């Protein structure tokens, strides 16, 4: 099967007063049709910048994609004129943001905004457009779509607005939906509704989803493949099973053990990752995690490790996987 999105050696930088921030430092990944991929990492790891780079929504100044290749369904995204890009955004690829309030226009009704989107990207006639909007609102399980059609964004709750955003994102049956922290600003019971909805839609509309989040638990139920990002790099990539049951990178180990699990039987201390992520204006020449790593070796400070592939589809940047390294195993769960 051909991937629908190919990202190769993507580098995005921000030119700020204090220096050049290397937000994304050369990442590669593929997304296959109808697949859900999770990008997980802490703030400043470059996960959101990756999403915006794929949409080509990085504004210069200060941000710039300095190198790389992004291929969406045969289209070379980085060399497409802005006019063309406007048709691609919302058409072939769409995005859901963390705060739906700022991405909806407060002065226009939901119906108007959704119709506008369809008018721009499809050839539907006026009377068909309204029908389609109602159908979409039904699809995202909004109970009274006719009523919501006439309402303004501020009249809806946070969860409802996020549903409207999702309805807009799927309206043109895009190849890929990028969801950037879609549940971070809503309550847990609403988060459960939205995740369930995304799961359900993935099967029905046949789009691929890239879910960007800081919450590892959120991707566990939805994504079949997961990328763990740290300091602008994908430090580990694998299937959900590989990442959660058999992770290889000490950072992934730490991340998994530092959050309490609600189903945990006995109470035990959380394990912590000491220190802070490196400054991306002058990232360390070796492994960016070396300073915080309990297993660090001399080489980790000298050289950035290459990708090791312990299993098919499982890629890890870590010297521990080198044959010459001492055996290191994750301390018990």
């Amino acid at each position, binding site marked *: 099967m051909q991937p629908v999105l190919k990202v190769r050696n993507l580098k995005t930088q921000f030119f700020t007063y204090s220096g050049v921030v290397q937000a994304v430092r050369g990442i590669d990944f593929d997304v296959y049709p109808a697949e859900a991929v999770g990008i997980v990492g802490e703030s400043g790891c470059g996960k959101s910048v990756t999403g915006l780079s794929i949409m080509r929504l990085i504004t210069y100044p200060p941000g710039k994609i300095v190198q790389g290749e992004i291929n969406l369904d045969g289209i070379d995204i980085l060399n497409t004129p802005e006019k063309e890009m406007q048709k691609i955004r919302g058409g072939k690829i769409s995005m859901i943001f963390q705060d739906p309030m700022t991405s909806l226009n407060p002065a226009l009704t939901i119906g108007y905004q959704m119709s506008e989107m369809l008018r721009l990207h499809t050839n539907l006639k006026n009377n068909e457009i309204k029908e389609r909007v109602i159908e979409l609102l039904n699809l995202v399980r909004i109970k009274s779509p006719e009523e919501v059609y006439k309402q303004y964004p501020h009249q809806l*709750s946070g*969860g409802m607005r996020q549903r409207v955003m999702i309805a807009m994102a799927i309206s043109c049956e895009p190849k890929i939906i990028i969801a950037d922290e879609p549940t971070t600003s809503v309550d847990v019971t609403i988060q459960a509704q939205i995740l369930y909805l995304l799961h359900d839609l993935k099967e029905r509309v046949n789009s691929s989803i890239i879910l960007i989040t800081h919450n590892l638990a959120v991707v566990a139920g939805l994504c079949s493949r997961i990328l763990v990002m740290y300091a602008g790099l994908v430090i580990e990539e694998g299937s959900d099973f590989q990442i959660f*049951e058999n992770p290889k990178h000490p950072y992934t180990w730490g991340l*998994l053990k530092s*959050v*309490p*699990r*609600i189903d945990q039987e006995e109470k035990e201390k*959380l394990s912590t990752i000491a220190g802070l992520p490196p400054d991306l204006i002058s990232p360390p020449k070796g492994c960016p995690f070396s300073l915080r790593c309990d297993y660090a070796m001399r080489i980790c400070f000298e050289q950035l490790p290459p990708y090791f592939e312990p299993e098919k589809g499982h890629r890890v940047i870590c010297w521990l996987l080198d044959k010459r390294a001492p055996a290191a195993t994750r301390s018990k769960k």
Partner: protein
Amino acid sequence: MSEDNILEVHNLKKYFPIRSGIFASTKGVMVKAVDDISFNVKRGETVGLVGETGSGKTTVGRTIIRLYDPTEGQVIFEGIDIASLSEKEMNKVRRRLQMIFQDPYASLDPRLTVEEIVTEPMEIHNLYNTKQERRERAAYILNLLGLNPEHLSRFPHEFSGGQRQRIGLARALAVEPEFIICDEPVSALDVSIQAQIINTFEDLQDEFNLTYLFISHDLAMVKHISDEVIVMYLGKIMEIAPSKEIYDKPLHPYTQALNSAVPIPDPVVEKKRERIILEGDISSNINLPTGCRFNPRCKYTMNICKEKEPQLLEVSAGHKVACYLYNK
């Protein structure tokens, strides 16, 4: 008042008037942010207060420490009803009762140095005689919290979120309090930093026999740190249970749904789990549903649920629930 209880809250209510326009009367519509709640906190324990938007959990914390004056009810802290104290008398109590805020960026005055921030409470309560003594004490506390005492002369914006939260903690500890209200102390931080702060909380509790009221929307975190968990919904307590039972034996349909909504970082477990997806949104605080506040979203709703509000009753040792399913 029982001997072991450091804090007892009796029938606490906090209503906020909604004012629209300049001349509107304040007697009109009220938001019932906290509506008649009672609970106790034992000395040296941690009680978790969990709830979603509009549950009133933050208001509870702020009313206990009298940032808000309660509309009704008693807050008995070490035998004194602090709900009825004057501002002056209350300020004295604040030496033993402290608070940590959610946003490590907003809770530190950007114009003061770390030294000024940490020594301010000592100045207010006249602890230590000289500036030098206060500085030494501040350095000692910073060191205790894993911060470099040499950074006393720096400003808050020079630190990361986790470090700032430690500075906030240092400020609270400066007066050697017995009880600390923690209002979402880690939710603004990255996961790896959250664990560092949570462990610090636990270490300090062991060392100084502190009592915490830990307010959060994160049920997994609350369950982890607390001995007892209180679940709130729209200003009411739905359930109080020992933290182990809150996941193993949740009684209230809302607690069950809340548990089910918390994702588990394990795809195998996650795929097998039975999900309870609540319909609809949280009702508005202004037009509360009659009867049980949860009834519009509950799948077990009976006639009585729509008519009368259920009482919070003890069903087993230390486990209370406000639901007619357990009260026939």
